[in-house]
């Protein structure tokens, strides 16, 4: 497991980092939890690796007007420790606790994970359900892309070659919303066979907001738009079960040695139902 030779440098500023992003043959590295395995298998052979993990501009969790803003290079560990996030978006800690192990969480970053866009990683489901907004920056400038338009395929995103992901904005949850993350892990990797994030708000016994993000099931994590049909209805067993079936309707599911497409679809229905049920239970 020896990577091909490469040069390693640490970016001294965001400008450095942006320059690196725009240079051919150069890869940025944050926590290295996904990139280093690729290097070791020689599936990636950049000539230069520029470290952006330590840059203060890419770190931290702050309250902003529209919600909570997370720097892209914030580690999972910091997400777990954040009181602010516990209050505004408890689903982040709930999900993060199940990602990898302690070492992975100490180094791995939320931005690195989203940028890498592994179709079985957990956090994409969450940012989809929360309707997060991602800030992409290059030397040409900045732009905002909704999470729901970010994931384009397995390991493919809306980022241009010269762009970095710098911030993730999690809009405040609707009044009275509950959230939940439900996943079934692949026993070897611990990644999600299927992972589902749900946000449900209830008022006077009726659903006022419902959003579902699903990962692991298909070749791209996706937002299940049909969940919005729950609005105005009573979140009882039957209705949530039907919503779960609708959420995965027509999806072409992944198939591999760990699970058939049929089983993944089944698990997805179970996970959506459970996530919606838990989220609804937490709402109010």
């Amino acid at each position, binding site marked *: *497991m*020896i990577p*091909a*030779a490469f040069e390693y440098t640490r970016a001294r500023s965001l400008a450095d980092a942006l320059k690196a992003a725009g240079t051919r043959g150069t890869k940025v590295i944050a926590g290295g939890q996904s990139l280093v395995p690729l290097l070791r*298998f*020689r599936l990636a052979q950049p000539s230069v690796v520029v470290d952006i993990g330590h840059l203060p501009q890419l770190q931290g969790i702050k309250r902003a007007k529209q919600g909570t803003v997370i720097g892209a290079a914030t580690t999972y560990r910091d997400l777990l420790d954040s009181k602010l996030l516990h209050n505004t978006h408890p689903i982040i800690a709930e999900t993060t606790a199940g990602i990898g192990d302690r070492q992975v969480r100490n180094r791995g970053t939320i931005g690195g994970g989203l940028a890498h866009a592994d179709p079985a990683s957990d956090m994409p489901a969450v940012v989809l359900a929360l309707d997060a907004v991602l800030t992409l920056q290059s030397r040409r400038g900045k732009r905002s892309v909704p999470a729901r338009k970010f994931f384009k395929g397995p390991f493919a995103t809306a980022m241009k070659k010269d762009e970095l992901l710098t911030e993730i904005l999690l809009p405040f949850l609707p009044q009275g919303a509950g959230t939940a993350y439900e996943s*079934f892990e*692949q*026993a*070897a*990797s611990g*990644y999600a066979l299927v992972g589902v994030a749900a946000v449900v708000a209830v008022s006077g016994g009726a659903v006022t907001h419902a959003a579902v993000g699903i990962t692991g099931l298909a070749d791209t994590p996706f937002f299940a738009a049909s969940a919005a049909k729950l609005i105005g209805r009573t979140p009882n067993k039957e209705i949530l079960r039907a919503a779960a079936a609708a959420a995965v309707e027509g999806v072409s599911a992944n198939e591999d*040695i*760990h*699970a*058939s497409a049929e*089983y993944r679809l*089944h*698990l997805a229905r*179970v996970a959506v139902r459970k996530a919606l049920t838990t989220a609804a239970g937490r709402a109010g």
Partner: protein
Amino acid sequence: MATLFGSGIKRREDPRLLTGRGTYTDDVKLPGMLYAAFVRSPFAHARVRSVETKRAKKVAGVVAVYTGQDTKDRVNPVPCAWNVPNCDLRTPPHPLLAYEKVRYVGDAVAMVVAESRAAARDGVDLVDVDYEPLDAVVNPEKATGKEAPQLHADVPGNVAFTWKVSGGDPAKTFAEAAVKVELRLLQPRLQPTALEPRAAVATWNDAMGQLTLWVTSQNPHIHRFLCSVMLKVPEHKIRVVAPDVGGGFGSKIPGYADEALVCFAAMDLKRPVKWTEDRSENYKVTIHGRDHVEYVELCGTKDGTITGLRTRVYAGLGAYASTAAPGIPTILHGLMYSGPYTIPNIEGTVYGVYTTTTPVDAYRGAGRPEATYLIERLVEVYARKIKMDPVVVRRKNLIPKDKFPYTVATGITYDSGDYQGALDKALGMLDYKAFRAEQAKARKQGRYLGVGVTTYCEICGLGPSQVAGAVGFGGGLYDSAVVRVYPTGVVRVYIGGKPHGQGEETTFAQIVADEFGIPIENIEIVAGDTEATPQGWGTYGSRTTAVGGPAVKLAADRVKEKAKKLAAHLLEASEADLEWKDGKFVVRGSPDQAKTFGDLALMANVAWNMPPGVEPGLEASAFYDPSNFVFPFGTHICTVEVDVETGRVKILRYIAVDDCGPQINPMLVEGQVHGGVVQGLGEALQEIAVYDEDGQLLTGTMMDYAVPRASQMPKIETASTVTPSPVNPLGVKGIGETGTIASVPTVVNAVCDALAPLGITHIDKPLTPATVWAAIQQAKGGAR
């Protein structure tokens, strides 16, 4: 003085190992050392048209590149060392580097040697191999078919051997039996996954013609022999050192091409050479375990007496016959078809089959888990068919405790046992009746609880040597010890075995401390260096305590006898008047007339006043060859709840009652049971090596091969009964593999019991949620 035998003291090796101060092979660094890396076939089966090394040789730091053409006349192939007789065994040559054909993904075609690991790895990318791909076959049953590609020119149908065992009159018994059950069982391949991958460092002293090899080995003396064969270097010119070894589970028994090639390069380049496997390489080229396709049948009476058992087994050997491979599905498997039961009529046929896959050899339990699994699955299905409680059926057929030694239909003789005792104890721990009541209640609520029981016995403590010879094992199966007492009364014990996690640095010192009445700190156990240790046959087959332990005891006895002679001489008393008390020889009736072990160590080593005719020094060696194998046994019980919506199996309780005779260190016994059970739970629930039709290993990394993790494991409740073995002077039996042997059928039985209301009788392991769910869907579909 309190004895240490029987006391659960902490492992003496742990402070070193747990604080990172052990010395593993990869820690060995020699001046001027080079690094080797292998070019491995990406095809499961292909003709090698050419291997072009020019570009690789130009890489900065690359010192040499060797191909099969370069090495074939200078080295011998990897030998197979278990030539099981009477089965028409064919072991075609396994060249160290392939030059005509590659036969599995990972088969090495070239070796790059360079100044750094990185340069060697860079060189690998630039060796150009022209392959002509051929068809692959990965399933051992299919490989015997007419359509299957042939791996070796002189092995028609890819059948390496056809081995048979029989006893009684199975044909008549089956023809006349009132009840018959049959199953097709898959025992998938497993990837051993020792924490430390394999590694080798070799250095060659050209002036002396001496080779030193550090290697991750369970049996350095066997590796010395195998290297001597492969490299054509005489055995007395080879020193093999196995330093700390981080687990093996059988995978570090065989001789491999890799370490021999590292030696070859060191000899050719006259510089030390190191190679350390990475995990992906480990999964591809280090042996795999199991890989059986089995057709099995059992017959009996309507009231639960088992009368016959028959098998037809296709045992995958992989591409070549690894060192011990032919003996695993035959001697260590077929001879155990009676299990703990009195089954008078047995017949088994085992086909050893070559497939275009990684070679298969001994993996924890080696043959016995496969036997126990098929017996215990059959007993369960039989009990259900005659509508009897499976525990009642088992009890009815267990060999009674007053019948030992007991010769089973396959011809081997079990040493001792109290199978009912272990069963009763385990049932008591669970409260079997109460669980059945709970299960019935849960079923009414639509919950699926199950209980699985396994009563097992197994064969281990591999010896005696005479049997080894008779069954074609290419070596002895005695073991050895040298006990050397220093002038200051401290002791070193050199053993022929090579513990690599089992803890004999502790347990053997316990034996010696008791013998000499000295503190355990004064004793050191030395293993693994052929230069220091007497000829031994290694640590596998749960043999080191049962065979090496008595050797240690015998050598210590001899030292003590000599010390007693010296004490009598110094005390001017007759030996008959001396008694051993509180670590001293004392003249009976005169407590102040005494010599401690320390006194005698000094006097023997300075030799100022030896008895006439007695040599100076205080040391003795012993080679212990047991009179039989030993047969540990027990009962494991597991209760589960199956979530029929997702197929997920939750283990509610896991109970293991094992009998390995008197326990030198109960904590270590418990540790072995825990480790074995965990490994078995992995096998039962999630581990499987998967090849696709083209022979590509799809579980080539830990992202896809599901080794069990601590967080996935239940609490394991252990207990024991103690039935000494008459075979050795300590009465001990092996405990290294029982957990793996017993736990797999226990879990599968429990899950099948839980799902019985759905009409499910069998699901092939591993019982992943996906597999269980699919079985449930199928059963529901069938019911509709």
